[in-house]
């Protein structure tokens, strides 16, 4: 008898639980259903898109942008891959990650007839091996990694190449980007190898060279390296050209140079995630960003180079002729594009750990 009572009580509980769960699910579905059409999830590099641009997009289209940022391709890739792209609409990977992600089916092929402003892009930056015919990616910005220094502390002309940073005069005064590939690229440039090498001997040689610069390093940072130059925590170091441009607007004594061994070049592209929910919004956003006035605004604010020829025409002379933002052909001598190093990645990682651990 008692047992029976208990059983029926459990049954009732189940029924109650079920109603509760079902109603919760319905509630969740209705919220998701209502919110879906007007939000767009954009996952972009930190300090890479002015807020004003996002606000204007929302004003024009009524689409709310849910915006979050990352500071390395690897971090973005890991997150997107774990959820198979679900929950993200637009991403901005660098070239070699466009390649990787398109091969792994994490991206959607683009219908370029929906992008009325596609023709504004510089044809020289299109149809590259990492994405033939730009089936998956639309160039967003490109830039370089070079040397920045504070003219108040370092005489101009003293730093012309990566190797100059090894000078003991900079003891405990340098910033290196907290990015394994960037730091190793510098080491490989100085030892005379390609920044995309997969040969362990060359990677080891770069590591041994880099171990010698460690006493000069005050801080590793890739989140907001320019602030360390502005607060005069460091007097020189590696920096991205856009960060250097932004810093020089606050303090004109911060200068950017293209090292004689060659800078590192990269390009980031807008792509649509395979799991994108708001396709229409994603296309509208890409087309919006390709609009000359908008692309110009982005370039002016963040200081990286635009692939958008129509936008460059609109730029004020002093930005267009600023070598930090638009390098000359001579500046770009010896530059190399970073590519995927595939199976050599753990080798780099191991030497990166040795470098940081100091053994």
């Amino acid at each position, binding site marked *: 008898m008692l047992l029976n009572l208990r059983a029926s*009580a459990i049954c009732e*509980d189940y029924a109650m639980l079920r109603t509760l769960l079902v109603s919760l699910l319905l509630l969740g579905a209705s919220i998701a259903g209502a919110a879906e059409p007007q939000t767009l999830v954009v996952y972009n590099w930190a300090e890479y898109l002015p807020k004003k641009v996002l606000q204007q997009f929302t004003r024009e289209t009524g689409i709310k942008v849910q915006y979050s940022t990352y500071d*390395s391709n690897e971090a973005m890739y890991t997150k997107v891959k774990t959820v198979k792209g679900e929950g993200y609409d637009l991403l901005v990977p660098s070239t070699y990650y466009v390649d990787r992600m398109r091969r792994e089916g994490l991206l959607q092929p683009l219908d370029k007839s929906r992008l009325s402003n596609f023709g504004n892009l510089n044809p020289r930056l299109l149809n590259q091996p990492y994405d033939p015919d730009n089936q998956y990616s639309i160039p967003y910005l490109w830039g370089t990694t070079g040397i920045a220094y504070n003219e108040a502390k370092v005489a101009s002309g003293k730093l012309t190449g990566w190797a100059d940073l090894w000078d003991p005069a900079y003891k405990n005064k340098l910033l290196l980007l*907290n990015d*394994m590939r960037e730091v190793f690229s510098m080491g490989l440039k100085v030892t005379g190898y390609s920044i995309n090498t997969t040969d362990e001997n060359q990677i080891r040689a770069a590591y041994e060279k880099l171990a010698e610069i460690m006493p000069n390093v005050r801080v590793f940072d890739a989140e907001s390296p320019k602030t360390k130059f502005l607060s005069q925590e460091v007097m020189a170091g590696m920096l991205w050209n856009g960060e250097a441009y932004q810093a020089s607007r606050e303090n004109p004594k911060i200068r950017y140079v293209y090292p004689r061994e060659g800078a590192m070049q990269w390009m980031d592209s807008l792509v649509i995630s395979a799991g994108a929910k708001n396709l229409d919004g994603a296309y509208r956003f890409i087309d919006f960003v390709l609009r000359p006035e908008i692309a110009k605004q982005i370039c002016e604010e963040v200081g990286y180079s635009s692939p958008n020829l129509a936008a460059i025409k609109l730029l004020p002379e002093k930005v267009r002729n600023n070598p930090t933002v638009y390098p000359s052909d001579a500046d770009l001598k010896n530059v190399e594009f970073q590519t995927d190093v595939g199976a050599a990645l753990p080798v780099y990682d191991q030497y990166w750990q040795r470098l*940081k651990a100091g053994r």
Partner: protein
Amino acid sequence: MRPREPFKWMAVGTIWFWLVAFALLPNLLVFVASFLQRGSDEFVAFAFTLGNYQRLLDPLYLGLLLDSFWLAAITTILCLLLGYPFAYLLTRMTPRWRPLLLLLVIIPFWTSSLVRTYAMVIVLKANGLLNQILLGLGLIDEPLELLYTEPAVILGMLYALLPFMILPLYATLEKLDHRLIEAARDLGAGQFTIFRRIIVPLTLPGIIAGSILTFLPGLGMFYVADLLGGAKALLVGNLIRDQFLSARDWPFGAAVSVMLTVLMGVLLAAYYLSSRRASRGVMP
């Protein structure tokens, strides 16, 4: 009896669901992943290996582990040296002040420790608050290099973890029977002897609990070393994060975290045993 049954089911069910879904399963996944191999296109390849644990024996990783232990240990010792007198004074305050002072110890918990670490950056940086005050007072001519140094890291850890030391110490010190101290004094014991032979043994559970509560989180707080130390050193926490985020070697990252979990388990077991012994020792 009946009206309470559904509640009981819900409560127990929720707890079980929570523990299984958010504690048991994730840890099980990590444990299993630590015996698999690194995949090239997928995060893990389903092939059994002990190689990840073998790799941990590399002097590189042992050294890294020692560095992490060292930092956590220094922090714990400093927390104890600062926290003990602090907690003692707290118990000697009049009951009117005590709640207020305790509140002041707890208030920092209302802000995330990451945010508080960023606040430390603002205080310590070259053109930061501290340097500006010192320059303004004319005590220094050039800004001091405070940020991105070892003391900055230790200061940040100390700041984040001190309350974890103070609270358990306060709890045991408050219960301290002062008649025992008076008895010892009557029997001719000096200040130091009273402290060493009466107060310390009686508050040992608090000392151990506080040390565990500062040491274990101290092992994992790599962001303090990153933000205040300039990311120049590598700690166990960085290693695990990097394996998952940048090196894409999830199995090895899993093996490192399994090892860390086991080490923490050993420490907790040691705590359990020693606290049982300590409480037995006090019994008459």
